[in-house]
């Protein structure tokens, strides 16, 4: 999936923040983040509320992973967020020493045998929700300080509803700056009008001060990925925008698995993606992203394909990641957008 965790380099800790819309979205994203870690041989730590821990475990079960068995094997450590927070929060102050003792013990346990460690934590979200913004930011700082001494990958979850009204306000900016990657996510219905809504959502995240060329490329990529989901996967979709140093990643998850070539009978949804995975910005077999309506007399290459081939040309990297119940098509854009030969900007 498009999770920035584990892919960033250059800092002692990969520290990503994920602003989620619904609990289901959170469970999907974090579930995949945890499953990837477990399958990759990481030690995985979850510091979450009880309902969220249950939701993550259910998501792991869908991935074929038994949380209880992973716990017994020492590959998964689950901790109650309120309980852990209560151990170092007293009198409205964070006890830095106690935090370090508790957190380093968890990470040290997970790192048994020298394996990499992957953490999901939402203690900061509890503080944020309670209105303790300064404490939330202080706790983020403590994670970063710990990360400077112990290598681990950290994902923090914040409900978007808690920050949507404050987008642009200093606390949100502070939180984003404390992370090496920021992710926003929203789900859309399987309607043509969702393509425009998705485009507006993504360009809205860039803000008014965004580089015009980068905003243009971002709008194109969001439009084409969303159109691909609605027109070809014919499903609703979840769009995730992750920002890390120099890169904006736009990922669209739909609910139609990658079409298998030579499957029996014609595929009603059409093979919108010819190659199941593309990781280089090479020109690939283009996908048809619009119904071939009015266009008689036009050259074939103008009537067909183009949607994802345009994405491929704009993106520094892109790929299709198959999932058991759908797929994620994602593309990364450099920030600001790099010039493309032949484009008279």
């Amino acid at each position, binding site marked *: 999936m498009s999770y920035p965790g584990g892919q960033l380099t250059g800092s002692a800790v990969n520290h990503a923040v994920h602003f*989620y*819309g*619904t*609990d289901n979205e*959170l469970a999907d994203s974090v579930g995949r983040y945890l499953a990837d870690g477990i399958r990759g041989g990481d030690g995985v730590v979850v510091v979450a509320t009880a309902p969220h821990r249950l939701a993550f475990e259910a998501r792991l079960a869908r991935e074929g992973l038994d949380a209880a068995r992973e716990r017994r094997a020492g590959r998964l450590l689950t901790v109650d967020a309120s309980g852990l927070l209560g151990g170092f929060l007293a009198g409205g102050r964070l006890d830095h020493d106690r935090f370090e003792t508790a957190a380093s013990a968890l990470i040290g346990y997970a790192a048994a045998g020298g394996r990499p460690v992957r953490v999901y934590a939402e203690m900061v979200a509890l503080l944020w*929700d309670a209105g303790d913004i300064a404490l939330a930011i202080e706790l983020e700082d403590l994670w970063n300080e710990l990360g400077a001494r112990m290598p681990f990958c950290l994902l923090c979850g914040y*409900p*978007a*509803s*808690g920050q949507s009204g404050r987008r642009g306000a200093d606390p949100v900016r502070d939180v984003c700056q404390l992370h090496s990657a920021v992710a926003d996510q*929203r*789900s*859309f*219905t399987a*309607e*043509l*009008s*969702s*393509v*425009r*809504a998705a*485009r507006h*959502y993504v360009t809205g995240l860039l803000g008014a001060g965004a580089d*015009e*060329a980068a905003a*243009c*490329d971002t*709008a*194109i990529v969001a*439009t*084409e990925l969303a*159109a691909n989901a*609605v*027109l070809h996967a014919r499903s*609703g979709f979840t769009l995730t925008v992750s920002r890390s140093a120099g890169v904006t990643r736009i990922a669209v998850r739909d609910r139609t698995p990658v079409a298998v070539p030579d499957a029996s009978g014609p595929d009603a949804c059409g093979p919108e993606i010819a190659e199941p995975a593309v990781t280089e910005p090479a020109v690939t077999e283009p996908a048809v*992203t*619009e*119904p071939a*309506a*009015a*266009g*008689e*007399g*036009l*050259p074939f*290459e*103008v*009537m067909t394909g*183009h*949607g994802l*081939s*345009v994405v491929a*040309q*704009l993106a520094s990297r892109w790929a299709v990641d198959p999932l058991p119940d759908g797929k994620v098509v994602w593309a990364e854009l450099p920030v600001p957008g790099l010039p*493309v030969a*032949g*484009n*008279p*900007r």
Partner: protein
Amino acid sequence: MSVSGEYRTIPDTGCPYEFAADGPGRWRLSGEVDVAVSEQFAASVAAAASAAGPDGCAISLDELRFIDLSGLRAIAAAATGAGVRVELQGVPAVFWRYWYLAGFSAAVTGVYPAS
């Protein structure tokens, strides 16, 4: 604390773009054109091209905020179908991006974009 259900656009009965006459043989396209409206837009622009005289027609894109491949294809199809010259004025960056990357610049005749 968290929102439930899927994000839905507010039911939008208004058309996100406007394609309006701006004098004899002159048209003005504003707003946003994408797959949701491209069929309707294709019909409008085809009618405009068909009604054009021997000098063709001109479309001002000064107020166009977004157009995708389906919109470009509609304009190209209108020019080709009517066999007339369609001059585009005030072409925005997003149009250029698609126009070159999708290969329209080499493949389409009859449409003349100008900044």
